[in-house]
């Protein structure tokens, strides 16, 4: 049986039995939501959804599919915001099958059409689940970005000397952010010396070292000299055992040592007052 014709028969059936099906569906959904939404609200939501589903099935309206998707996504978001689980939202959609089945079983007609219809409703229900996941993913990504921004300050230590105290692991995403902020600050402040402090970086392996070398390389292209400070004794041993070479980049144990070196390069001296 042609899909188009089957769906159209189903659409006609849904139209003819509108009140019974929507009524049944609303009851099932309200029961599933355990009274957290009023029956009238539920019925209103479902009425909209129902007409869109009929329009989509009858295949006469090109925009119906897009509108249906948009309404489902909206429903998903609202339910998530109101504290419902994605399963509860999906079940609301799935229970349309049950509402329709009651009538189809009675009439013992339209069974093949029902099967095709059932699959369509399954897809719709799954869609609400996907929308929920996608919204969650976006929140997580946004939070991760905020965290990275917050933990990458660039501070001015003295005229022409800036410092980047790194805290946490240095992966490639973080390195990109560090490079961008460091270089922008170099341009804005006109600094010619940058100290990259890694006291707060828990492990320095070959990958982290490569990221550091990249960052120094980029800063040098802007004419800035760099010093890496905060090399803890354990880290020093790891670096040597891994055979990592920092070449001509000055490295110091503490930020204070690095500042002293930078001041010396700037031709400055700290003397008692």
């Amino acid at each position, binding site marked *: 049986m042609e899909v188009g014709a089957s769906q159209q028969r189903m659409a006609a059936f849904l139209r003819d039995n509108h009140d019974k099906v929507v009524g049944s569906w609303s009851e099932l959904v309200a029961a599933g939501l355990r009274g957290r939404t009023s029956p009238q609200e539920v019925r209103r939501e479902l009425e909209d959804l129902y007409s869109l589903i009929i329009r989509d099935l009858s295949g006469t309206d090109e925009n119906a599919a897009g509108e249906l998707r948009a309404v489902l996504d909206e429903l998903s978001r609202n339910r998530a915001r109101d504290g419902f689980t994605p399963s509860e939202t999906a079940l609301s959609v799935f229970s349309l099958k049950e509402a329709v089945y009651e009538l189809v079983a009675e009439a013992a007609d339209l069974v093949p059409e029902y099967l095709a219809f059932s699959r369509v409703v399954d897809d719709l229900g799954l869609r609400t689940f996907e929308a929920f996941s996608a919204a969650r993913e976006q929140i997580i990504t946004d939070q991760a970005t905020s965290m990275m921004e917050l933990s990458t300050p660039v501070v001015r230590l003295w005229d022409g000397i800036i410092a980047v105290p790194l805290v946490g692991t240095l992966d490639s995403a973080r390195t990109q952010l560090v490079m*961008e902020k460091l270089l*922008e600050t170099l*341009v804005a402040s006109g600094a*010619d010396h940058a100290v990259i402090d890694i006291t707060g970086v828990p492990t320095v392996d070959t990958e982290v070292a490569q990221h550091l070398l990249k960052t120094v*390389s980029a800063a040098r*292209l*802007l*004419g*800035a000299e760099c010093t890496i400070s905060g090399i803890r004794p354990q880290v020093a041993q790891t670096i040597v055992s891994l055979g990592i070479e920092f070449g001509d980049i000055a490295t110091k144990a503490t930020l204070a040592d690095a500042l002293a070196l930078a001041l010396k390069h700037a031709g400055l001296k700290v003397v008692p007052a």
Partner: protein
Amino acid sequence: MDQVPILKIGQTLFVSIQIDLQDESVMLLQEDLAAELAATAATGVIIDITAVEIVDSFIGRMLATIGSISRLFDAETVIVGMRPAVAITLTELGLSLNGVRTALNAEKGLALLNGRD
């Protein structure tokens, strides 16, 4: 093909690259600079790339080559005004521009050249 003008101020040659250069123009600049260095006994070259949005390996190599050529004439080259996005991209490309010095702007570049005595 566009010819990039070379200014001489004191002992320094100034080049400011303002537009998206085509490969032939890049080669022409290299030749022109070599000729100027030979003719004027300039001791420094400042190449201002503040307006340059893209530096690929070809232009990068040109800059490094100019550095080598000027050294043959006992002159030093300083590249100034590299944009952060360009610096990050060059680093990712793996071009380190060894042999040329860099500075944030022409003023600092000049200070660098004059300080070398």
